[in-house]
């Protein structure tokens, strides 16, 4: 699915990722953990193609194609989805329009006709139920005036509508209370399938109680310092990051 090989990324001339390598297979759920400033969000943004994230070395192959050669929208068309840590507010563009435009962009790429308006709304309503969202949300501006929790639920709703092959969720758990966390985790779990891969970027082990990962990686100073299974997250919860930082030094 995704093969990252020796990736180097700089932001504003500052090196953030320093030779990161990671392979994500079809159907697998990977958790990326690590202390503040270790490069977790940078990895997520670099994979999604955010301007200003300069690739200074390495390769990324996504479904057999050179990911880094693609524009952000092409990455989305190929089935990549980034769940933002801080979803952007866009007053004046309403949610339902964005959802429809996004779904149609993906369909166009696959050579499919535009989605039928009625079927689309039926599907959105169904997914909104999964995310415990109210109907009125559809006509509101994208993330406009949403609470932190609503924004995160909206990210997962978009993901449910787009059914990506690879979802990268950047701190989707931050700012959520325990009930909202369960709703979000449940949303993510409904998408788990042997065909789909998920990369969870998170600070805390708590999310992993609800979305159980196949692999856990610890990022230190822009590279993976240690990998393991879900027990590694529990160990981090107990011991903190210092011992890995020391080991990596």
């Amino acid at each position, binding site marked *: 699915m995704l093969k990252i090989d020796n990736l180097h990324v700089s932001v504003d001339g500052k090196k953030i990722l320093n030779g990161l390598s990671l392979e994500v297979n079809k159907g697998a759920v990977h958790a990326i953990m690590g202390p503040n400033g270790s490069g977790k969000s940078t990895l997520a943004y670099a994979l999604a193609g955010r*301007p200003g994230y300069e690739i200074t070395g390495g390769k990324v192959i996504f479904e057999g194609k050179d990911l880094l050669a693609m524009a952000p929208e092409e990455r989305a068309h190929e089935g990549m989805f980034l769940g933002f840590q801080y979803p*952007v507010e866009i007053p004046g*563009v309403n949610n339902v329009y*964005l959802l429809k435009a996004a779904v149609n*962009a993906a369909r166009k790429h696959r050579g499919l006709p535009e989605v039928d308006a009625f079927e689309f709304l039926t599907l959105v309503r169904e997914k909104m139920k999964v995310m415990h969202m109210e109907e009125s949300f559809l006509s509101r501006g994208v993330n406009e005036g949403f609470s932190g929790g609503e924004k995160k639920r909206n990210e997962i709703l978009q993901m449910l509508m787009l059914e990506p092959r690879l979802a990268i969720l950047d701190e989707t758990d931050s700012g959520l209370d325990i009930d909202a966390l369960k709703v979000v985790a449940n949303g993510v779990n409904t998408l788990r399938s042997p065909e789909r891969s998920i990369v969870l970027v998170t600070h805390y082990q708590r999310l992993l109680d609800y979305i159980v990962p196949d692999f856990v990686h610890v990022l230190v100073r822009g590279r993976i310092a240690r990998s393991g299974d879900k027990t590694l997250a529990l160990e981090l919860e107990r011991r903190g990051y210092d011992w890995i930082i020391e080991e990596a030094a």
Partner: protein
Amino acid sequence: MASALATRIAAEHAAAAASLPTEVVSRERRRSAIETLATEGLPTSRDENWKYANLRPLEKVRFAPPAIGVPAGPGPGAQPSLKVADLPAGIEGYARYTFVDGVFAPALSTPVPRAGIAVTTLRAGPVAEAAGSRSGGAAAASAPGSRAPSSAGTDAAHASASARAGSPVLSSIRPGDAQRLKDARFALLNDAFATDGASIRVSAGTDCPTCIELVFVATVESQTASSYPRVELHIEQDARLGLIERHVSIGSGANFVNASVKVDIGRGATVNHYRVQESGAKAVWFDTLSAVLAQDASYKLHGVNVGGLSSRSTINVLLAGERADAAVSVASLGDRQQIQDAFVRVEHLAPRAKSVQTFRGISAGRARVAFNGMIVVREGAQGTDSQQSLRGLLAGPEAEIDVRPQLQIDTDDVRCAHGATAGKLDEDMLFYLLSRGIDAATAQRLLKWAFLEDVVARIEVPELRRQIERSLAGQMQEAAELQELL
């Protein structure tokens, strides 16, 4: 010293003076307007408040209006060839009054008599009288018991015309208000040449939130003649009025239009005023609006500037009474080589009044879009609450945007919050849309759209809002994709 331009204007005025209707503007007032223009000259780009306006096209304009009732060439004489279908679609519930090249066109109007509302054309004479006989007092639609329609229309027009000589706006100009007067010089040009106009009087306590639509159509080419839309609005105590005013071109669109609008809002009265400028692609459009608000009066002005090659709107709002409340929202869209310049001065004269100025402008192509928002708080206007949110968006490497807030505060107890920005599309928003698979061109259009929606969404007349959105979408050349949003 008279500039060459002012001299030419005076000469054109002298030649046309005999045929200009005195019931619209008295001969004395026309002469005095010409004299002031001769002394002051028209604004030039050296004037601080005029540096973004395009004044050069004035050199080639023929200022005299088309001869009234002469059925030759474009202009009022050509009116019969204009059809209702040529005009923007009507808005349900609004009585329409159409003026072609500044003269009332009864055949294109659908007046509705309403209790407490007197709409009269400023001009008496053949056209207005014909209007009366054709549509049963069309030009003067009013309720029984209020101002007299049809047969007495001429007298009523005369009476109100002379009463207007001491109109509230001019009489409220005090010594020391020289700058305001200087910025209103294009209204003097309208005084000098106006051929007709609409006078709307709303009597005390009348409630008409869905009421009147004025459509000003320009057909005559600027090298032949000019067009002078004129509106005088008088709202008495505790009344409420919803007014739509739109400016369009039919034909080549190479018009010179110079509008003058005076708004006088009485105690506790409310006016919702929508103004849409969608002149032709080659039109030169000047506009002066002056509003005076009495105690507890409320004025919501929504301006949308889409059309024209070169457009300048000068808006003066005087908060003359305590707790008066004014909200001025302007959306301007410039593309190709358009110039959209708006100047808004809100002046607090009385205590505890409130004002909000909102501007959203987009400049694309090689256009220049400017907004100069001024707040003046005079001595004695304590407890003033004034807000300003001015934002310009640069949507092309060769476009220009100028957003300028100005504050002049002569009293201590004032709350003024103002923000002004001019910049490019928000990178974070753009990336968010791209990351959802939306292509770059669509994402940019969508964000431009969203930027203007901020102001457009405040238009509370659904059909008008739809029409404006369609017009904006067309201007943004995104009709196909953005139609879905509408």
